[in-house]
């Protein structure tokens, strides 16, 4: 008896790190089924780095904050373009979606909004510049997601 293969809506969280790229490539090689998968690549821009420009003791120069914000936006645009290219290279048909805010929370929120079947996330991300601890976003997602999560560790 042939089972009707159900469609999958797969969200891949990508922050531009090579680890998230590795996760996408793993997905493309081992999981991707063109006819049944709708792929959404989610990129979250975290503006916490730019909004708390300066220290607690000195008043923040608004123009500096604005500049830092613009810089983050530019970096994000570059990252998005790169994600489109990576998707094409991997032979995956997908849409890149942007979100703003705290990465873990945004991933959960968007995954629920879009009603995804599963989330794919690398265990590490851009650990160098960010103040987050390596793996904290994937940990957060695993513990708060309402759908299964695949954590890719390489």
């Amino acid at each position: 008896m042939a089972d009707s293969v159900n469609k999958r809506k797969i969200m891949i969280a990508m922050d531009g790190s090579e680890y998230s790229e590795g996760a996408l490539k793993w997905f493309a090689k081992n999981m991707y089924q063109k006819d049944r998968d709708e792929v959404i690549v989610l990129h979250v821009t975290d503006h916490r780095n730019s909004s708390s420009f300066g220290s607690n003791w000195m008043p923040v120069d608004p123009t500096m904050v604005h500049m830092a914000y613009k810089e983050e936006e530019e970096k994000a645009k570059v990252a998005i373009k790169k994600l489109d290219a990576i998707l094409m290279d991997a032979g995956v048909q997908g849409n890149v979606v942007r979100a703003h805010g705290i990465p873990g929370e945004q991933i959960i929120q968007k995954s629920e909004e879009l009603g995804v079947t599963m989330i794919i996330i690398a265990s590490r991300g851009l650990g160098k510049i960010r103040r987050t601890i390596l793996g904290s976003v994937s940990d957060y997602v695993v513990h708060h997601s309402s759908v299964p999560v695949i954590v890719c560790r390489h």
Partner: protein
Amino acid sequence: MAEGNTAPSSTGCAVIAIDDGEQSLWAFNWYVTNFHKPGNKVILLHVPESYINATTMSPGRVMELQRESDGKTTDLKQKFIDKASKLGIEAEFRVENADKPGHAIVDVAQKENATFVVTGTRGMGKFRRTIMGSVSDFVVHHAHCPVLVCRHKDK
């Protein structure tokens, strides 16, 4: 020179961690519905709880507990083999005895060269000396392959 295997490596090996909890059955079902690719080898791995302490318990009690545990394992095996045949997939039910389930799961995945490991987020909680979720946490951080954490939002 002709290559022996011309097909791309699209078949994999899934190691699914099973315990007595309800989540295991749900995870297995979810895996088959949303994840399984025909040709994938499926290993249902069960690491029984080992709260039997031979040094502090009487031999009779140890034997009694062992028999209970074996009985539960057999029931579990039957349940999953039945489920697998109903879903129409070939699965191997394997039992590993180990103090630390996390380590055992990671080891089996390594030996079998698994494509991914499937775990739940909650375990038994009653007799385990572990905190809920610590096995899945360990597996996520130590497996050499991606880990599917089958999270089921409780109603």
